[in-house]
Structure formats: structure tokens, C-alpha cells
């Protein structure tokens, strides 16, 4: 690894930005196929109702309309599957109700797909949808966890009594109970993790086509994982074999988890295209995105921490209720379990940890992964609780954390994970220094002189990225493997195409993966192109989520490059008339060890494709594929510090400083890492201070547009101080960990801890997310009686 101007560790400008910044990206909605029709999805306006009947005749007679299909037309087509089977405490499998792509008999949330209207133009389809007459017979709705678990609550599914999907646990309950019996202190907390709307800048879209000449279906869709869509749509919904179903996820404008799931619309479009023999295109409007993109978070938790007299953590007991929405989305069931409960050791040596999670169906949009997916929920709860413990025990907030840090690695937690490496003191020290933690009191006094309340908050956290290995996740209920594939094709004249099963929708893979390959092969950065997002081009792939792409996908590419080099050595040995064992490869040259006899990668590649003078028995060509199944998760960690200033008159919270000190493993491209950290921080700050998806009791979405749903804007954010201390992951060759979710995991508790710190002088000791001005004002008013 040469670390040259474009190699590993260099802030290379992103290859993909030329097309994005000049408007030449090719997104799904940019694709138009000859003869295409437009589909409009008619969505339920009510949260829960029996469908008495649907009269499509007026819509069918409207101008330009080709077809109107409802759930009855699709009856018999497989339902939308979920990807992870969770078992309850008693060993019973979760309740897994059918999810028809188009509602059949009942609608279960505002936004549920009821019909597709297909017409010559988008406008005709939309207008005609107004003419579809649906007889909704309203049923009582359950729009929250509280409503779902209430006595006599309406049932979202008959087969799920009490609206419970599963009642899961992890950790040793008896050991945890024992820890509490021996505790000098017990500190308890109740927290809500607010429901969020993902809000990728590109709304979902799809265009499906059926080619009768080849019997092949093609679906262009806004997906983070096209192969996963092919697997679910092909094998489970439509019954199509892989070689007759091509999924293309071209340029995708942000996902944040909301483009992981296989959505009903993808099945409806593909099925409709087959029925009509014409391409059918659908683009979601923003107002429909609010009520049909999977939402995130939505937990209610209570937890208690047992401590000894010195503030050492003895045990942690967490009880969480999670809202899964109306149907089980692809990763819905694992997010509040295996991406949540196993995080509760955090960076601490707590010897006994127990977490139980009961998940509920409600008449709301299905909930799935959202940037961090389970880990922000766990980190928020733990770091709020640790702060509260420090306050109640009269301990310093930093000291209590330091007292409990894991320092010996590998470290086996009591909740399944084994941390391979880390240095939590180093990132803590870095953050304290960079945030001038020690100088805070002077800043607080300066704010007070202006009538403002200043507060500072901290969170120390770990995250688990690149969920793996496949055998383990399989034993925990995953219905897919979690490996990745990478192919490296060295062309005859030495340029390189790299094929990855991950998908870039903002992450910059086309740049970082090219940096790795050009660095390893010693070829020009510009001679390497990265191909992703097309099931017809990529051998296989599990896609991009959970900060897995570099650690898992990047490693697969690394291993494929090693195979290329290995084969190259054989060809070079032949050309140089030396033995393979004596061939060394460095900076693009194969050299006979200890001599100046060498040949270039270009010569070797040309020889591989024009094998006139070639090793006997060796296949021509220079292209290798590797599948990589990691041995473990990776464990990024860090410390985040937030500083706020509160206007006590209005309750407004101004975020005045944000400091991150992160260990994300080896950094391939510092500029892209900084961008990921900035984006994640903005996302986490949005959750902490602004974003909240609110349902009315009747299941109507009260925050259904940007009139009511607050996204963070640039002007809301201070400059971020980003700092790194790197320890290398021990179980992948690049030593990489993951960075995409760091901000949304680490910063929310730091922000809320800062708000509470600011308000403590007024007697406020609790604050819910988001800490809106109204919520802060109410807390101040309550505290002041």
C-alpha cells in the first residue's frame, strides 16, 4: 500500500461527482423505455378498514387508462416476505402475517397500497386513481405502542393477539437479577426513541419491463441491494428464476436504510408489466413517500443500571417495546433485536446484561432500518442512563465512563458480541481536548451573562458494523447470508473493472474501491472503474447497509485483487523464466527477487489475453472473483461531545459546538469519511432536536410533509470538529471498520445530555427527543411549578 496521491489514505476527489454535479447522474426516474406506461399507486386514506368492495369501472373508462389492478387481481401472488425470523423467549416463532402487495380485504395503514392505475401519462393515471371507488368500512386503529398493548385494543392481525409479533430476550436474566441484588446503587430511566421519517432526497421510483422474446423481466428500482430484491421478488413473491429477473439499481439518491426493503410497489410494477406486456413506470411523490417509505426507531424503554459503591457497573436490565408498523418489512424484526439488544455492553465492562424486547404491530407505516438501525436506540438509552447514574451518584460524567471502559481485547460481552480491538480512552481524551471540556464553565458563565443557559453533553459509544458471519446470523434467524462478492477484471491493456455486490447511493464506492485496487495493483486511479447495482453484471451481492460496504465488500475486492496478483505471478514467472516462488509484485511490476528482471502488470495482462507464450495448463484471462464472509462484526467506537445554548424564554436550543473523536479503523479516503461523519451527525442532530413523526390516535399522519416534519438545515448546525484515533480491525486485511452510521449513533445522547446539563440549574432532569423549543419550554415551566 503505497499511500500515494490517489492510493489508500488519500483524499481523492470523488469520481462520481462529475456526473452528479453536472446533472448527468442516471437515476431511476431518468430512465424511459419505449412504449412505457405510467402506474399510479392508489393508497389507503384510512388507517384500518375492511374493504367492502372496489369499483374500478369509472377509472377504467378515464382517458388514457390501460388497466386498474387491485388486491383481488394479484390474489395468489406471493406476499412480501420478511428477512429475519425472531423467536420469542418461550421458543415460539414470531407471528408472521401475510403481506399482500395490494391490500386484500383490509387496509392496515394510511398509505397501504390499494390499487395500481396504469395509463398513458403520469397525470392520467393520477387523475383516474381519484375515480377508483373503494368502500372502506372503518375499523378502530392502533397508532402507537401504547394503543396496541391496551386492553381491548383493536387487532391489526387476527393471528397476533395483543398485537404482539414476538417477545424476545438476550443475555442472562438470572445473572443480571443477581447483580441488582448486590448493588450499592440502582439507577432507572424511561426513554422514548422518537419515530423518524427517512427522507432520502430521491423519492423511491421503479420501472418494470417484460421482454416476451426472452421471457426476461427487468426492474429498475431505487434500491440499496438489488440482488436482495431479486432474491425476495423472484423467489418469494413472483416465482421467477434468477436468470429471468434482472434488477438494476442505477444512481440512487440516498437511502439511509429506507431503500433496503423489498417494497410492495416493486412487486406490483413487475407483475403489472408482465400482465400488460409494456414497461410500467412509477415515481413516488414526496407526500406519498412520507406515508410509504419505511419509518425508523419508535421504541419505548425502561432500563435500570446496578452499580457498586465506587460507580462500577454491575448489571444492566433493559425492557423495550418496539413498534414494527402494519407489516413486517425486510429487516424490521432484527433491527430492535439483533441490532439492538446485543449493543448494551457499549464500551463498558458491565458483567451482566439482560435485554427483553416486545415488538408490536400497529396501524402505521412499516418500520425498518434507518441509519444506525437499532444501534442508535441502544446507544441513546445507555448513554442517557450512564449520565443519569453520574448525576445521582454525584460522580463526574467523564470519570464514571472511564471507570467502566473495556481495556483488554478481545473482549467478550455478556450479550453475544466479541470486541476485537479498541482504545476508548484515546478517543475520550481526544474529544475532551478538542471540545475544550475543561474550559466549559467559563463559557457557561459567558452565556449566563447574556441570559442564556449553556450545557455540555457527552456520549462514549461503540457500534457493531458489517453484521456477520453468515453461519452465526443464520443461527439467529437471518434468512440470507451476510457475505459479499467482488470481482476484478484486468483488461488486456491493463485497465481494470471492479464489480461489487455492494451499492453506492452516496457513499462514494466508485472512488474508495478504485483507490484500494489502484493502490494494490499499482495502476492509475483513473484506469479503475467500479461497477455496481446491476444483477446482470455483478456475480452476487448483499448490498449496502449497516456500514458494511468497505469492511465486507471492500475486503472481497481486496481478496479478488490478491487472486489476480497470484495468477499474474504465474504468468510473470513464465515470461521471466523464473520460478513462481521467486516472483515479487510491487507498484505494478513483477520482479524476480534479487534481480532487476521484471515485467509489468500490463505485459502480464496482455499475455493473459493473447496467450501465445503462456504457462502450460494455466487458463487464459486475468479476472478473479472472491466471496468474503467476515469472521466477526467490526466495532467502530468513539466519543461525541455536544454543547448547547438554551433560550430560557422561548425554549429554543441552539447547538453551538459538536466534537467527534472517532475510531473507524483504517481510513481509505479522509474526505469521504469526513463527509460521512458530517452527514451522520446532521442526521443524529435531527433526531435529537427536530425530527419527530407523529401519528394522530386515528392513525392519520400528523407530520405528513415538510410543513410539519422538521429536517435539519445547514443553518441549524455548527461547524463540526472531527478527530480520529485509529485502531485497526484485526480480522479483515485492510483493518477497516465502517463510518456511515457513526454520527446518528453517537451524537443524539450527547445532545440531550447537553440540554439536560443546561437545564439542571432550573431543576429539569429529563428531556425527551426531539428537544423542541416547546418541549424545553414546557419542561422549564413544569420545573418552576
Amino acid at each position, binding site marked *: 500500500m503505497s499511500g500515494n496521491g490517489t492510493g489508500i489514505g488519500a483524499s481523492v476527489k470523488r469520481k462520481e461527482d462529475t456526473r452528479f454535479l453536472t446533472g448527468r447522474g442516471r437515476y431511476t426516474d431518468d430512465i424511459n423505455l419505449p412504449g412505457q406506461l405510467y402506474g399510479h399507486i392508489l393508497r389507503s386514506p384510512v388507517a384500518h378498514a375492511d374493504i367492502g368492495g372496489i369499483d374500478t369501472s369509472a377509472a377504467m373508462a378515464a382517458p388514457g387508462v390501460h388497466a386498474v389492478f387491485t388486491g383481488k387481481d394479484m390474489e395468489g401472488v406471493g406476499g412480501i416476505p420478511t428477512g429475519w425470523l425472531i423467536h420469542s423467549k418461550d421458543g415460539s416463532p414470531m407471528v408472521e402475517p401475510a403481506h399482500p402487495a395490494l391490500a386484500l380485504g383490509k387496509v392496515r395503514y394510511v398509505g397501504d397500497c390499494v390499487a395500481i392505475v396504469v395509463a398513458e401519462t403520469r*397525470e392520467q393515471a393520477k387523475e383516474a386513481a*381519484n375515480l377508483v371507488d373503494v368502500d372502506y368500512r372503518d375499523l378502530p386503529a392502533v397508532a402507537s405502542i401504547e394503543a396496541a398493548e391496551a386492553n381491548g385494543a383493536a387487532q391489526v392481525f387476527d393471528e397476533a393477539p395483543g398485537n404482539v409479533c414476538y417477545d424476545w430476550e438476550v443475555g442472562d436474566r438470572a445473572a443480571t437479577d443477581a447483580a441488582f441484588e448486590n448493588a450499592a446503587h440502582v439507577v432507572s430511566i424511561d426513554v422514548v426513541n422518537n419515530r423518524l421519517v427517512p427522507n432520502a432526497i430521491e423519492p423511491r421510483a421503479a420501472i418494470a419491463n417484460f421482454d416476451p422474446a426472452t421471457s426476461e423481466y427487468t426492474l429498475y428500482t431505487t434500491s440499496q441491494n438489488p440482488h436482495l430484491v431479486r432474491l425476495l421478488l423472484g423467489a418469494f413473491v413472483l416465482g421467477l428464476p434468477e436468470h429471468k429477473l434482472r434488477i438494476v439499481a442505477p444512481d440512487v439518491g440516498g437511502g439511509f436504510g429506507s431503500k433496503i426493503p423489498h417494497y410492495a410497489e416493486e412487486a406490483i410494477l413487475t407483475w403489472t408489466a408482465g400482465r400488460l406486456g409494456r414497461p410500467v413506470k412509477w415515481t413516488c411523490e414526496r*407526500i406519498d413517500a412520507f406515508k410509504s417509505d419505511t419509518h425508523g426507531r419508535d421504541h419505548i424503554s425502561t432500563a435500570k443500571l446496578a452499580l457498586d459503591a465506587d460507580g462500577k457497573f454491575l448489571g444492566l436490565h433493559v425492557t423495550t417495546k418496539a413498534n414494527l408498523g402494519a407489516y413486517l418489512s425486510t429487516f424490521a424484526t432484527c433491527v430492535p433485536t439483533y441490532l439492538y439488544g446485543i449493543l448494551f455492553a457499549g464500551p463498558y465492562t458491565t458483567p451482566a446484561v439482560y435485554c427483553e424486547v416486545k415488538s408490536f404491530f400497529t396501524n402505521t407505516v412499516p418500520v425498518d432500518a434507518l441509519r444506525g438501525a437499532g444501534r442508535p436506540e441502544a446507544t441513546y438509552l445507555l448513554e442517557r442512563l450512564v449520565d443519569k447514574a453520574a448525576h445521582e451518584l454525584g460522580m463526574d460524567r467523564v470519570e464514571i465512563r472511564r471507570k467502566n471502559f473495556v481495556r483488554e481485547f478481545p473482549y467478550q460481552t455478556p450479550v453475544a458480541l466479541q470486541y476485537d480491538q479498541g482504545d476508548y480512552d484515546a478517543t475520550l481524551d481526544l474529544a475532551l481536548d478538542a471540545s475544550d471540556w475543561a474550559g466549559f464553565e467559563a463559557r457557561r458563565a459567558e452565556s449566563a451573562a447574556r441570559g442564556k443557559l449553556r450545557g455540555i453533553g457527552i456520549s462514549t459509544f461503540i457500534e457493531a458494523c458489517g453484521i456477520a458471519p453468515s453461519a452465526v446470523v443464520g443461527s439467529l434467524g437471518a434468512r440470507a447470508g451476510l457475505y459479499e462478492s467482488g470481482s476484478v477484471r484486468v483488461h488486456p491493456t491493463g485497465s481494470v473493472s471492479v464489480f461489487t455486490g455492494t451499492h453506492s447511493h452516496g457513499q462514494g464506492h466508485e472512488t474508495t474501491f478504485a483507490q484500494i485496487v489502484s493502490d494494490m495493483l499499482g495502476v492509475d486511479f483513473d484506469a479503475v472503474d467500479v461497477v455496481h447495482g446491476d444483477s446482470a453484471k455483478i456475480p452476487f451481492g448483499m448490498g449496502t447497509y449497516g456500514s458494511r460496504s468497505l469492511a465486507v465488500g471492500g475486503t472481497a475486492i481486496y481478496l479478488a485483487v490478491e487472486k489476480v496478483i497470484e495468477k499474474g505471478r504465474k504468468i510473470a514467472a513464465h515470461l521471466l523464466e523464473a520460478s513462481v516462488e521467486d516472483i515479487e509484485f510491487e507498484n505494478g511490476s513483477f520482479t524476480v527477487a534479487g534481480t532487476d528482471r521484471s515485467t509489468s502488470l500490463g505485459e502480464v495482462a496482455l499475455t493473459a489475453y493473447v496467450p501465445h507464450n503462456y504457462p502450460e495448463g494455466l487458463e487464459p484471462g486475468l479476472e478473479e472473483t472472491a466471496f468474503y464472509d467476515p469472521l466477526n462484526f467490526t466495532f467502530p467506537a468513539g466519543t461525541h461531545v455536544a454543547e448547547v445554548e438554551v433560550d430560557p*424564554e*422561548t425554549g429554543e436550543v441552539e447547538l453551538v459546538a459538536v466534537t467527534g473523536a472517532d475510531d473507524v479503523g483504517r481510513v481509505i479516503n479522509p474526505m469521504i469519511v469526513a463527509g460521512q461523519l458530517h452527514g451522520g451527525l446532521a442526521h443524529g442532530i435531527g433526531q435529537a432536536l*427536530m425530527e*419527530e413523526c*407523529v401519528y394522530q390516535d386515528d392513525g392519520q399522519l*400528523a*407530520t405528513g410533509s*415538510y*410543513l*410539519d*416534519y*422538521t*429536517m435539519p438545515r445547514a443553518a441549524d448546525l455548527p461547524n463540526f470538529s472531527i478527530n480520529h484515533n485509529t485502531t485497526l480491525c484485526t480480522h479483515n486485511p485492510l483493518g477497516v471498520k465502517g463510518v456511515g452510521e457513526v454520527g446518528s449513533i453517537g451524537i443524539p445522547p450527547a445532545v440531550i445530555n447537553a440540554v439536560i446539563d443546561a437545564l439542571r440549574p432550573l431543576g429539569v432532569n429529563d428531556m425527551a427527543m426531539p428537544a*423542541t*423549543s*416547546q418541549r424545553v*419550554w*414546557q419542561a422549564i415551566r413544569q420545573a418552576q411549578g
Partner: protein
Amino acid sequence: MNDFTYHAPTTLNEALAALGAEGAKVIAGGHSLLPVMKLNLAAPTDLVSLAGVPGLADIADGGDSVTVGAMCTHAQVAGSAIVQARIPALTAMADGIGDAQVRNAGTIGGSVAHNDPAADYPAACVALGATIVTDRREIHSDDFFQGMFMTPLEDDEVITAVRFPVPSRASYAKFANPASKYAIAGVMVAQGPAGVRVAVTGASGDGVFRVGEMEAALGESFSAEAVAGIAVSSDGMLSDTAAGAQYRAHLVAVMAKRAVAACG
């Protein structure tokens, strides 16, 4: 969105003629009208654009008043040297409407005609005692803003300008909805020929209103302290996810105090 006929008249008379059609509607910046049309909440048969009608986007200094043409965008008002020199509070108010895109599309005439209860202009008009000038008459702002989305405008009547008396001092303080940037509580305080006026937008379900108790107190003593102790009732206040009625009422009092303080 329904189909409609688009008219692009080049004189006010042509515009008025086109507005004679049943179901016709004026479009200025379109920033309020087009979104509701997209949601099928309004379905005009004819849209009559004022964009090509000359003379509707001028700003004139009339000595004791400033006249702003109805088609002036918020950005135009915010950037006007005349407005800045004579009524700087109006500059600041216009500069704080929505975001840059909104300010470059939305117009004063459209905002006033729409009379959105959370729009900023109604507070400015009422506090400054503005006169709404139409193709056929002049309407004092006290008579113009008749409650949420309600004005005395006839269906085919066109606002041509708004005339603001120049105050001796004025200031606008707004607490914006963090999502939409509409006013949750916007208070314009002005002292002018007609005395002290305190007009509030964004807070009440009835649209812009005046706070008599504050006006009286400021008439006695024009200072932030004079209004600091005056509470505003939450009766009739709007309530949504961002701000309930009590919080809104509280914010009205705080914004009023800050507006007075900013008057200097």
C-alpha cells in the same frame, strides 16, 4: 391537478376581463395557490397571471408613505433601498419570509390576498396601518383581514399595490415554525401617525389580531418593560405539533417584548 386555461394578459383591463369567467383565479407568485391545486384542494378553471401586466412591481416613496406594487416579490421588498430607508422593519420582515426560493417567487399582493393566518405580511399591514389598493378601491388593513383566508376582495378584484404609512419606529419579531418557517408567533410593533400598534400573526385561528392592552401600555411608555408583564390569552390560539395554544400565547408575549426592544 385539474386542467385549466392559462391567461397571460398584458394590461390590467385584459386581466380583469379574463377574471370575469366563472371559476377564474388570479395567480401572482403562485406560491400558495399551486400547492393547493396540486392537492386538488383548489380547482380553478382559469388562471390569470399578473406577471405580464406592467406597473405592478414598482416601489415608490410617497413622502409620508411607501407604496409597494402587488407583484413585488418578497426578495424585491427585502432588497429595496426605498423600503430600507423608510421602513427598515418591513425590509427585515420580508427578508425573513420562508427561504430564498419562497422570497423569489412569493409576492406581497399574493400574500395579502391569501391572508394565510401564519403569513408575515398581515401583521406588517395591520401594525403599520397599511392601505390595500385594488383595481377599484382602497381598503384599510383594519377592514381587509377578516379572519383566516378571508378578505373583502371580490372574485374578480385585483390588488395593485399596498401603501404603508411611514412609522416613526417599528420592528418585527418572529418565532418561526422550524419545519415550514411560517410564523408561529410574529409580532409587528409600530409607532406612527395612528399611535402605537401591536399586530400578531401566526398565532390565532382568526388570523392577524391586535393586542390592545399592549398598545395602551406602550402608548403610556414605549419600552420593553411596559409590555413584559402583559400575558396574552391562549383562547382561540392555533395548536399543532410544533406549538400548542399556551406556548403560542407565551411566544406572542415574548416576541412582542423583543420587537419593542428592537425598536430602540
